[in-house]
């Protein structure tokens, strides 16, 4: 296992043993800002080198379609098999359509460690996939309600969400700088990256496991869905990536994105827009079940799938 995954496991074990190990919230926030700036810059520099071609447009389209449609796919399962009401089903579904930045970062890092390099523009795909699912989740939750679908403020908050702005902004800065302009900040943003990711995943392990242990809302059925959804959605992501003709590493990353569930942007949006939904529930599923699953199993899995399926398309 790679260092970041080992630190994630350490965090999870520490929380399971009820250790008081904790990363202060503001420090974790600082680390996550660093990770987002670094991943954005790297993507932008990479694109400035490789240039942009039609692939970007197709990848963005695939990402947006996945993010928007996955909630409609998972919501009925949440209602019937998971026994959730409409509002909770909509809220949970929004999480699965959207994405987890840290899962993306970890996948990139692990893949890159063995030379399996995704396209730089996948950062833009990541950013594009954050929000469409929120819209879908609200449509599901309020389908029959009389009120308006969402408050105008929500759209703005979601579009100018801190992580979207930082990812796309750093991406743009990376493109502007190019490889030469990036040199002065390369030591901080590239050399230190894997180490910072370790510390961050240590915290994620602690948080994910504590979330899982504290939850009262998670049923066995819902926990099962927390594993089934990433498997199904990740496969859909891989297939979509193959269909639009991406290279194998980018296909794998699109799979990881589709499989991942949001635990930052979407929970905040749901708390605001669907306050009656159970926050303990959606955080337990996305953070406590799906996130660990993806970090430990999903990332290698979707790489395998991408490597198996991509050649088929190339041959077609």
């Amino acid at each position, binding site marked *: 296992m790679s260092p970041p995954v080992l630190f994630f496991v350490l965090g999870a074990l520490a929380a399971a043993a009820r250790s008081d190990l*904790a*990363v202060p*919230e503001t420090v*974790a*926030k600082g680390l*996550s800002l660093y990770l987002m700036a670094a991943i954005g810059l790297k993507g932008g520099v990479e694109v400035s080198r490789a240039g942009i071609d039609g692939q970007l447009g197709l990848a963005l389209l695939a990402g947006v379609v996945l993010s928007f449609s996955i909630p409609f796919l998972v919501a009925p399962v949440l209602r019937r098999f998971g026994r959730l009401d409409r509002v909770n089903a909509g809220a949970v579904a929004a999480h699965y359509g959207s994405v987890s930045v840290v899962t993306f970062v970890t996948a990139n890092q692990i893949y890159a460690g063995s030379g399996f390099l995704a396209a730089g523009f996948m950062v833009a795909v990541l950013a594009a996939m954050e929000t469409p699912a929120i819209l879908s989740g609200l449509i599901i939750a309020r389908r029959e309600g009389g009120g308006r679908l969402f408050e105008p*403020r929500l759209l703005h908050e979601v579009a100018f969400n801190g992580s979207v702005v930082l990812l796309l902004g750093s991406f743009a800065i990376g493109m502007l700088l190019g490889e030469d302009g990036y040199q002065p900040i390369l030591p901080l943003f590239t050399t230190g990256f894997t180490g910072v990711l370790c510390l961050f995943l240590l915290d*994620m392990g*602690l*948080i994910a496991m*504590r979330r899982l242990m*504290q*939850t*009262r809302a998670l049923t066995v059925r819902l926990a099962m869905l927390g594993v089934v959804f990433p498997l199904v959605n990740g496969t859909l992501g891989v297939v979509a990536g193959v269909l639009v003709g991406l290279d194998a590493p980018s296909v794998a990353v699109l799979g990881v994105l589709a499989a991942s569930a949001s*635990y*930052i*942007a979407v*929970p*905040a*949006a*749901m*708390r*605001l827009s669907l*306050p*009656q939904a159970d*926050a*303990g529930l959606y*955080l337990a599923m996305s*953070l406590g079940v799906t996130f660990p699953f993806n970090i430990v199993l999903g990332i290698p899995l979707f790489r395998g799938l991408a490597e198996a399926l991509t050649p088929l398309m190339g041959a077609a």
Partner: protein
Amino acid sequence: MTEMTRRERIEVLVDAPLVRKLAELAQEAGITGHTLWRVTGGSGTGGVWSEDLLSGATAKCLFLVIANAERADAFMAALEPLLDSHQLIVMRSAVDVVRAARF
């Protein structure tokens, strides 16, 4: 002696993402301001919680307003429909304030 006037003190324990909504309701009730601080943990029917959360979606704040009785009543009335859906805890008591004209 310093002149003091009786006013109402309303404190609401509320999830961070919902603070802005409360602020709007207070303003609509004619209240001139509010003060906010983060609470760092607690327990309740929803179990024990502490602030070690990434998303801030379930971080909680104490939201304090001082107002005269009339505005306080208007604010309480505006909160009424949110009490259950937003899981608010609301406390009201009397305080004496100086420079009371501003509240």
